[in-house]
């Protein structure tokens, strides 16, 4: 069943010489329990597509046409008040830089509890218990003690786990992960990708994974959409697109992935 259905989305920014369209007629669909990887170079419009879905386009950009149906509701025409409800409640987000996304002067627990209580009529005690449970669910060691930790006391991988916990606090149906591992060490990257995959399976999340790395897409996604200059130039099952890239740009992206000599079993 389609959970997110974006059709012919067009985002415009006014310039001195008229409108530019960094997102230009993008269509994509994600079902529950499915991961779609949106792949492209920096500047291709993949992050702006995500921001448009969440209603967080930077000014003076705006949606010019198209629809963003989330569970049937068109977010492209929804008022800001409704979008605020949707963010966190129906859509969770994880960004690239976990240090920049956390408030440095509030503990991890404070930030989790704030998010939990923003979306639910939940007592403080219950919220703190739920916060501890969430941190445990994202695999933070010694979760209960971590509630009182400050962001700077956590490693990069732990911060990303904490952010994922915050993203999941409102029990969203769609998780948007924008380059969630690009700022992390490779071994930590593998851990976080594994965690995201496990959460998708366990909670039946629809996942939009944004990455510039086709190899990451290959290991994580069911389907892939390749974006270039604001448009999706190719999409399909990971298997199909990577095996037989139909578009020149996809082939070039594939070419850029380093091939390592094969390892021993």
């Amino acid at each position, binding site marked *: 069943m389609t959970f997110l259905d974006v059709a012919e989305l067009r985002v415009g920014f006014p310039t001195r010489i008229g409108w530019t369209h960094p997102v230009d007629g993008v269509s994509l669909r994600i079902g529950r329990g499915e991961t779609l990887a949106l792949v492209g170079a920096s500047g291709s419009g993949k992050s702006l597509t995500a921001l448009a879905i969440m209603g967080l386009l930077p000014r003076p950009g705006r949606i010019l046409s198209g629809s963003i149906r989330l569970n049937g509701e068109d977010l492209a025409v929804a008022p800001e008040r409704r979008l605020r409800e949707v963010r966190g409640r129906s859509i969770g987000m994880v960004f690239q830089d976990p240090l920049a996304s956390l408030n440095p002067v509030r503990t991890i627990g404070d930030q989790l509890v704030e998010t939990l209580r923003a979306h639910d009529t939940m007592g403080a005690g219950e919220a703190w218990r739920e916060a501890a449970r969430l941190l445990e669910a994202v695999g933070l060691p010694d979760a209960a003690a971590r509630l009182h930790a400050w962001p700077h006391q956590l490693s990069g991988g732990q911060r990303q786990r904490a952010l994922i916990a915050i993203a999941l606090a409102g029990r969203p149906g769609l998780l948007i992960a924008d380059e969630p591992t690009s700022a992390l060490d*490779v*071994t930590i*990257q593998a851990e976080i990708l594994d965690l995201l995959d496990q959460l998708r399976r366990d909670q039946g999340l629809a996942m939009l994974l944004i990455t510039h790395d086709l190899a990451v897409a290959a290991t994580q996604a069911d389907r892939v959409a390749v974006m270039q200059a604001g448009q999706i130039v190719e999409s399909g099952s990971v298997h199909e697109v990577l095996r037989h890239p139909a578009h020149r740009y996809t082939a070039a992206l594939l070419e*850029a992935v*380093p091939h390592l000599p094969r*390892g021993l079993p």
Partner: protein
Amino acid sequence: MTAPLLAVDRLVCAYRGRDGSTVHAVNDVSLTVQAGETLALVGESGSGKSTLARAVVGLLRPVAGTIRFDGLDLSAIARRELRSLRRRFQIVFQDPFASLNPRLTAGETVGEGLEIHAIGTSGTRAERVAALFSEVGIDPARRADYPHTFSGGERQRLALARALAVDPELLVLDEPVSALDVMVRAEILELLARLQRSRGLACLFIAHDLATVARVAQRIAVMYAGRIVETGPATAILTAPAHPYTMALRSAVPSINAAERPERIILRGASPGPTAVASGCGFATRCWWPERAARCDAERPELRPVGDRAVACHFSRES
């Protein structure tokens, strides 16, 4: 075998922590780079690899050990001599947005080294700068442009041209492509491989993953918590890593082809970082090998030859 161009011997680098404690970022590290060869130094953040790079180019004074360039001990020679020696090794940093002076034009940036080392006349310098632009694939017509008008990949090309201006024999590359997109990354690696061939350059290439260095390195040294845990020929390390940490690094490389994808090894816990353990193996806290034993906590494994490489693990054996 000829004498190495760069020989680092039992190097120790330390920082004073805020609480007065001493943090050993690089601990007893030895390595060599032959003329014309690329050695990749791979490790996660906090493993000490950038500290080592800074020590090698003289930006940081080591606590113990020696760094020899072409047989000359960098800590023992006079300041003036060091200055002329510096022309022979250059460094390129990770962030091309931070490493270029925003108030110098691209041409001034690339030509600065020529002036500092008084190479050529102003006329021949201009020619030389233009040639360097072409060599790294940037239109010499853009000499008068400022860094902000260049993309990340183009800036890294400028940083390379700047480093190459004084005709160095050794380039120290500190994560030169980590800040770049996959496609731009491939282009820069291609350029590096080409320059290495055409100029016979030796490189110390620092990276945090094995995928990046596969195209450029002849040898690989893997660093963990301030020490080298495995070193040997690149192909051997990429195809059959022998240290449990190298195996985890290798398994973390995402691959397009499912058949090429080894089982992902997930390391538990966090890196001890530079606050290295006093005794025992630095990797013991995250080691996933069934062989792991009490000995690993008590006795530090020395780097010892295992087949075609050296490994610092009590339990590594020839495969």
